[in-house]
């Protein structure tokens, strides 16, 4: 595992997703869409125009039966830190419409600032950024079910997973009202984490030894997607299967996850 950038004493929220536990049920995707008012269309057959802040990929080891093996890989925004907050997408945005918060490690998107040049999408190797090709249209009555804490996005802007930042803000407000100086691990959890029936997703402060993710990310089977690019993401994956760990990054024939180190 490459040396991580340090936020000093600040928070650095991240996830650990256990791929051996994930069943690929898609609950995380549904919860994410409901929590974050993610728009959808009647016809979603063109997946390249769909908006899925959390997307579950199906990976295969490519071997014939009986050695066939598959793995489901949930992919939220990786909230890359890059080098000193120089994440691939934040540094390229010409209008300062996306930001890396050194206090939380969250890469945020300012919808009303974005003018839709899509340079950030070109910069993101994870396809975690989505463009609103259409105006959001909700089925009759569904407006009543929208989350009032999350603004809906207009046509022509880019959006992405925010680590349910509205929940962080609400948790901070609650802590303030209760006279606490800080929030607990359970005070701020993302919708996908809570919705996962298998408990595959763990969320917390990667800098806080009291949080589960702090220990989980140090497991020998932990890896991150495309680490070799220097994106320094905050989503860690666990898998006991070597082919899955290898699928997390690109390697030359004579290389492997262990050798790169």
């Amino acid at each position, binding site marked *: 595992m490459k040396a991580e950038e340090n936020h000093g004493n600040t928070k650095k929220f991240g996830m650990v997703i256990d791929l051996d536990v994930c069943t690929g049920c898609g609950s995380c995707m549904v919860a994410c869409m409901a929590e974050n008012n993610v728009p959808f269309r009647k016809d979603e057959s*063109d997946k*390249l*125009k*769909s*908006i899925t802040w959390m997307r579950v*990929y199906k*990976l295969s080891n490519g071997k014939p039966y009986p050695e066939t093996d598959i793995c489901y*890989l949930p992919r939220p925004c990786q909230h890359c830190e*890059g080098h000193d907050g120089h994440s*691939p997408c934040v*540094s*390229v*945005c*010409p*209008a*300062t*419409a996306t930001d890396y918060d050194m206090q939380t490690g969250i890469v945020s998107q300012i919808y009303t*600032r*974005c*003018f*839709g*040049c*899509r*340079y950030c*999408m*070109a*910069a*993101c*190797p*994870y*396809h975690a*950024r*989505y*463009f*609103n*090709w*259409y*105006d959001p249209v909700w089925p009759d009555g569904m407006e009543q079910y929208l989350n009032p804490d999350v603004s809906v996005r*207009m*046509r*022509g*802007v*880019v959006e992405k997973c925010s680590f349910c930042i509205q929940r962080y803000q609400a948790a901070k407000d609650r802590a303030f009202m209760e006279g606490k100086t800080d929030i607990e691990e359970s005070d701020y959890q993302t919708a996908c984490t809570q919705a996962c029936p298998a408990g595959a997703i763990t969320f917390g402060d990667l800098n806080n030894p009291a949080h589960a993710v702090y220990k989980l990310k140090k497991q020998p089977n932990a890896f991150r*997607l*495309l680490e*070799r*690019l*220097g*994106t320094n993401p905050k989503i860690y994956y666990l898998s006991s299967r070597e082919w899955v760990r*290898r*699928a*997390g*990054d*690109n*390697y*030359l024939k004579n*290389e492997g996850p262990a050798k790169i180190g």
Partner: protein
Amino acid sequence: MDSAFIPNGVRRCAPGKFLVVLAVAGAVLLWGVYAMLLCWFKGLNQTNMNNNYGFALWIWADLAVIALGGGAFFTGFLRYIIGKDELKNIVNYAVLIGFICYSSALLILAIDIGQPLRGWFIFWHANVHSMLTEVAFCLSCYFGVLTIEYIPLILENRGIDRVPFLHHLGHNMHDIMAVFAATGAFLSFFHQGSLGGVAGVLFGRPFSFREGFFIWPWTFFLFTWSAAAYGPCFTLLITRITEAVTGKKLVKDNVVELLAKISGWMMATYIIAKIVDTLYWANVTAPSKGFTLMDFYSHNAFYGVWILILEIVIGGIIPAAILITDKGRKSPAARTTAFVLAVIGVCVNRWVMVLQVMAAPVMTFDKWALYYPSWQEVATTILPVAYGVILIAISYRYLPIFPQEPELNPID
């Protein structure tokens, strides 16, 4: 009918014929405008772009016309700064072509953004660390320079020149044109380079990412260099086409050969740098990210090694070899072939640096994404061509674009 506005000492076609040309080009223009309005009012869902292809045909067209329009800044640089006086006979046309290219590029950018009414955010809320910000600023400023360079030409129209204020304005602008040209060269160096930087800084995309010098990836320098090398070829190609359409010799061979020679040597040195860059990228940069060269040229239905050969050999080495040899330059057929190949070469380079970057998968479980443009994208990309034809036709008819035309085509 309009003879009072036609320059002295030249002959132009009948007004009826001229209007037919304008009408045909105008029809194509209107088709493009209709598509443009669809994109503005209905949104970018009118295109076939998608979340894998955030950058597509328009961005390629944008980069390509800016590279091709590079003839304006480089010819101006050679004429006004280096002092190649013969080039005064082609610099007007280079400026006009540059003006068309850059205005088209700005229009394409205005169509390409998802929220056109927020386009000014790129200036107002500028992130100075983004290459695209540098592109927007320098592009807009340089378009201002091209406008300033084009205005004196308009003021030379016989009808306009009769107005004393405008006559003197044109004269004064000519007098300090070297200052404007130098500013244009400065701005061009940065915006051509930052267009290269747009792709080169994408460290999440191993196909385009390049190391570099200070904050600039190598593509920054390669783009500036290639625009200076290939841009004049486009100017010369359009000059050749204009000569064919009008049936007249408009620029003397010695002028064409001089610009072709400089372009050829620029191209030759550029292509050496490009080959070195490609070798370093293929053997060092990409493998350090876990990729081999062939990962980018296989397992898909379109992008093969052929595109690398087309760009570097057919569109680079061959035209450079033709233009740096005396024999090649002096043969009209050979040098026109070189111009065509050079234009193809630089367009292919811009294509791969935009579309192949988007197409190549980065995650191991991702797939190549191929895309074809919608008719709205095609129409809006052709729009600048029609607009260019119209502006060239009008400028050629009413302005003394080619100073050598009266001498080369005396009226009996």
